[in-house]
């Protein structure tokens, strides 16, 4: 399982990577916004994308839209981990095709639960 973690803050990437490692996912790579993430996704064989929303360059929502519009990437499971906490925003992310939505600050248990749920659906 190869995972791309996208967040503009290196500390948050590190936290997410640590949590993923604890959950048994050791093959992770990082990008600091949508613009750097998109080419990595297009050229790499990633199985899962964990992205923040609010980033310079390209936001996580735009990244999600690009992923869904790309024939090769459109089925990639995407989990959004973000501080954006307005109903309108969550609805917009859902409409754009997000697979899970975690609001910051979050716990390891919540992240695990959402990831498990996403893979249950994807595999089931």
């Amino acid at each position, binding site marked *: 399982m190869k995972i791309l973690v996208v967040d503009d803050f290196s500390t948050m990437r*590190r936290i997410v990577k640590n949590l993923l490692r604890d959950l048994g996912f050791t093959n992770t790579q990082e990008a600091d916004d949508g613009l750097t993430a998109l080419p990595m996704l297009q050229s790499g064989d990633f199985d899962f994308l964990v992205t923040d929303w609010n980033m310079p360059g390209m936001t996580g929502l735009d990244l999600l839209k690009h992923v869904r519009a790309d024939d090769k990437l459109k089925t990639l499971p995407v989990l959004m981990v973000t501080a954006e*906490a*307005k*109903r309108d925003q969550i609805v917009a992310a859902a409409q754009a095709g997000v697979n899970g939505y975690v609001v910051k600050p979050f716990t390891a248990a919540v992240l695990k639960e959402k990831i498990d749920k996403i893979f249950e659906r994807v595999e089931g």
Partner: protein
Amino acid sequence: MAELQLDPHAPSFQQEMKALAEDLLQKIDGGDLGKVVGVVNNINEVRDRTLYDEIGKLTRGLHNAIKDIKSGDELSEDSGIDQASDKLAYVIEMTDKAANRTMDLAEEGMPLNLENLEGAIKLQEQWQKFLRKELKPNEFRELTKQIDAYLSQTQINSKKISSQLSDILMAQDFQDLTGQVIQRVTKLVAEVETRLVDLIAMAGEVDRITGISHGESDQTETPQEKDKKIIAEGPQIDTSLDGVVGGQDDVDDLLSSLGF
């Protein structure tokens, strides 16, 4: 900060206008048109003078406001706003450093703790065997060596973990420093706001004298326009606001209502 108060001894615009208006009525009643025109000229003069005064104050106020914001620190040529940006960049740097230091220490400590745990589990298995009298004499001799090694190693690990934990505590000292910096920036923002409010009050005086009124066309946004703009806003400080979720449970409820 320089004050923008009016001269308290000067008669107000209203007082002057009132006196002149009364004078004007008297002159009209007196029937001397030449004097009436003279008073009208006086009225115009007072109005113009007041207008120039107010515009002068407004200009001076703007100048002072810019000067005040700039003079955050006499030793520096940077403006207060530049300094505030630098200060906030310092906050980001400090919090970033503290977060990474804390994570470094926690990551160093985790394997040590795991070593203690795994060692204890292994010893307990052997110990249970011993209690059940299942250990052969040579196995028992091996066990005593293992216990001895474990006791030494655990002490070393525990000491390291203790020092890592206290370093983690120390790494939180950023809160004090960043807190002070943020308080200063907050103060600057409040000062800028006060300045702007003063300027608006002065501009209002000019508007009143000239009879200018501003339309309110630029502030309304239709709900449809607002709906279209789904943009990143950063963390919501007040989760009691309308349309803001209170936490992960609300997010889950909302998503499940959308069929997730």
